[in-house]
């Protein structure tokens, strides 16, 4: 057991990225994720890496596209409005099958919204962060330790499947401090024979590209990409179950909402209510099977979210609406209290 260090969530992401071999970071200041950039600005020059404050979020994601084209591990981070700007680049990364790690430390929206925590970019992250048919692997940490671990995991998944992995955190996780271990198992990055690193006059040229003017070809590329997505759905789903063995009510919550929900569940158990939780760790691919299984024995599911109800749609799809699914939420930078969640659980028990 290695020693533990007290760190902010945003700093844990940066530290883990460096541990994973990322030596290129491009970003643009935005609250509440700026610590990632600040940490990289301090560290990268000392380890021969590149930190560059880009002129815009758009430029930053395209710098990521450039580094990724050469096969190196690279990342950017931002918060909700900035991720909207990166949408174009995320689509191009998907179209060109390039790996990258993108961090969204969410804040309230829409528009400029606020700077307090939110989970209202769930649809954006899981449905489509840009134009065209594509997915990103979406990882939802609920602790500073997981911010770090999932960052390492994100780089590995991105490389394996040649696509963007997104850390979908929120302002709370970014700003809060917890003791963490920085002892990671880092798998070596796979070979990238497709990378544009110069032909050295030894091979035909590589082309990184998302343009396919012949519809038959574009269709083929999309089908192939979705074949890969199916492999991910089969192999990479991550979730945590809490007290689900005898549960009659199931809470669905990710990220900071799962921390609040856990407190509420512990309190409800003291009152004799049989409640458990399924916490998706991958939001895409969504853990459908555990919800389907839960729907066979629980009488209701409560989706606890910092949004107007976004993940709830995936929960309903996963359990095919076999049991009622209700929402417990706060939005705009507000966080549900354990009491609010407890009351919602009690209401379902009635």
């Amino acid at each position, binding site marked *: 057991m290695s020693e533990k260090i007290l760190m902010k969530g945003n700093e844990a992401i940066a530290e883990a990225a460096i541990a994973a071999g990322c030596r290129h970071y491009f970003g643009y200041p935005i609250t509440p994720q700026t610590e990632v950039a600040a940490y990289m600005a301090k560290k990268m020059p000392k380890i021969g890496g590149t930190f560059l404050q880009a002129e815009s979020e758009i430029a930053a994601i395209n710098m990521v*596209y*450039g580094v990724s084209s050469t096969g190196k591990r690279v990342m950017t981070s931002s918060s909700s409005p900035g991720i909207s700007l990166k949408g174009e680049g995320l689509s191009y990364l998907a179209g060109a099958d390039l790996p990258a790690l993108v961090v969204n430390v969410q804040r309230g929206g829409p528009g400029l919204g606020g700077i307090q925590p939110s989970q209202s970019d769930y649809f954006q992250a899981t449905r489509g962060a840009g134009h065209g048919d594509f997915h990103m692997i979406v990882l939802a940490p609920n602790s500073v330790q997981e911010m770090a671990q999932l960052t390492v995991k994100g780089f590995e998944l991105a490389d394996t499947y040649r696509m963007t992995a997104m850390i979908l955190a929120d302002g709370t996780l970014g700003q809060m401090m917890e003791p963490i271990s920085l002892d990671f198992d880092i798998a070596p990055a796979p070979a990238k024979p497709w990378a544009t690193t110069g032909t050295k006059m030894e091979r035909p040229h590589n082309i990184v590209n998302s343009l396919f003017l012949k519809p038959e070809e574009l269709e083929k590329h999309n089908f192939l990409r979705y074949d890969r997505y199916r492999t991910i759905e089969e192999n990479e789903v991550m979730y945590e179950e809490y007290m689900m063995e005898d549960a009659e009510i199931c809470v669905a919550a990710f990220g900071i909402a799962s921390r609040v929900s856990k407190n509420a569940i512990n309190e409800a158990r003291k009152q004799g209510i049989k409640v458990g939780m399924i916490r998706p760790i991958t939001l895409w691919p969504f853990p459908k099977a555990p919800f389907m299984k839960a729907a066979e024995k629980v009488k209701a599911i409560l989706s606890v979210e910092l949004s107007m109800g976004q993940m709830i749609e995936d929960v309903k799809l996963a359990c095919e609406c076999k049991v009622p699914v209700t929402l417990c939420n706060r939005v705009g930078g507000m966080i549900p209290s354990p009491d609010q969640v407890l009351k919602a659980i009690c209401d379902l028990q009635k």
Partner: protein
Amino acid sequence: MVVFDKPHALADVPLHYCPGCTHGIVHRLVAEVLDELGIEGKAIGVAPVGCSVMAYDYFNCDMIEAAHGRAPAVATGVKRADPDEHIVFTYQGDGDLASIGMAETVHAAARNENITIIFINNAIYGMTGGQMAPTSLPNQVTQTSPYGRDVKACGFPIRVCELLSELDGPEYLERVTVNNVKNIRNAKKAIKKAFQNQIDKKGFSLIEVLSSCPTNWGMTPQKALEWIDEKMIPYYPLGVYKDRSAKEEK
């Protein structure tokens, strides 16, 4: 003895450009320079969105297709990934570089990013069928300025070299054209210098090439080359707008 042939760095495939379009000449000049400097194997080109979007098929070096206007940002990433080994160039048109990608252009120049930019200014959007570009001349008739570019309503053309020359960042800025053999030779010299600057780690070099678009200008290829002399050069004078190293040597 062969005294003139297709350069090695240019792929042996037909180009999709319209008859008489000077994109092909500039492609060849870039490829000749890659050959002569022996850098094809280290070169990584970034293609834009616009007529030259498929430039990735035409150069034998590694190529990347960028989103519209973002080539300088992509090139920045590629260069920073391995500054000693990668020779990075972008090839962009006026809509790409001076309209949607102006921020990326200005900031790459301001950072003196050690890349080479080949900027094709033909005063029109070619690929989408001849709309007004940021470099379309006052009163120039295009599909989206059918009564001529009205500077009161849609502003004035942007002179990119002059604009960037006000920055402390860039190393080298030159405007050339390819409308006759003499000008083609000058253009090649400029492009070669722009790549040599990168090899010498001097920084950001941009070569603006006044080019013709016979199809969308509605002219014969020959008349289009004359139009560059008559209309474009008076508004966009040829010459070196910045050469920091030469200035410092003085």
